[in-house]
């Protein structure tokens, strides 16, 4: 085994964030993690670990994605992760875009709430990220992989 893999783990406050924390095991000796979320209070759930915030937005106030994109570029340049991973929602998508732009490996894990088809953000992500995951085996395809889900994890 070589050096630790540096991960930047990104999610909006709420269900996306809770899913992200279940996927990332903080006791994994081979991974070092920096977290990024949309609310400063999320830091309390990852105490003692590196944490950044980015402003929240949705399809209703999409203009905010421009400053968020530039902030994401800055954070990625500073932290130099090997991989950027997001469970959503729209802000995660923008961070993955910034990561792609900087030549980082990118991963989208679609929310377990999407039982019948990938989310809109997941569909967009799947067009440019290195790997997209679904949390439902029934949605697995040649391109969209399944690695388990946050319930059984």
């Amino acid at each position, binding site marked *: 085994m070589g050096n630790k893999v540096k991960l930047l783990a990104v999610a909006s406050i709420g*269900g996306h964030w809770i*899913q992200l924390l279940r996927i990332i095991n903080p006791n994994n000796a*081979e991974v070092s993690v920096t977290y990024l979320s949309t609310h400063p209070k999320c830091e309390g759930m990852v105490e003692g670990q590196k944490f950044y915030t980015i402003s929240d937005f*949705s399809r209703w106030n999409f203009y905010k994605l421009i400053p968020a994109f530039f902030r994401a570029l800055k954070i990625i340049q500073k932290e130099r992760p090997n991989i950027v991973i997001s469970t959503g929602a729209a802000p995660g998508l923008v961070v993955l875009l910034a990561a792609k732009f900087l030549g980082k490996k990118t991963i989208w894990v679609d929310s377990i709430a*999407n039982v*019948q088809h990938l989310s809109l953000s997941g569909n967009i992500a799947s067009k440019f990220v*290195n*790997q997209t995951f679904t949390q439902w085996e029934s949605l697995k395809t040649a391109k969209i992989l399944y690695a388990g889900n946050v319930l059984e994890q």
Partner: protein
Amino acid sequence: MIFVTIGTQISFDRFIEAIDEVATLIDEPIIAQVFKGSYQTKNVKTVDFLNPDEFNKLMEEARLIVGHAGMGTILSALKYEKPIIIFPRMASLGEHRNDHQMVTAMRMNELGYVHVAYDRKQLKALILNKDLQPLKKLNSNPSNNMIDFIINSVIKR
């Protein structure tokens, strides 16, 4: 104490109104986390935004969780091993962009993790059932398998 939560994105008056009505039939205190609704509760104490620490504290203290079918709500209740009743939002009533909460509710119920109420009557009956137990538990020892598989899909170690 019963902790009621609707998440932090959109109001859910139909649900909060139903909770307010059931509250007159029970003695147990109810705390409801609401968001930008227009309905004013008469019998239930409400709070607006809760930061994650406050949210988790209420989850821990509650006997029963009643919420919308958001995965944050469901996963938190399961983490604290509380019985949870979910009441899915319906897109046709303008409660969400689409009906994914209905599908989530059905699937999570099939898998044995949650109690589901699809209407007011079912909600009332479930809340009045004093012996509602937690259902299936989350795996409490997360392994590295999922994250290792995910990382290995893009990087060779």
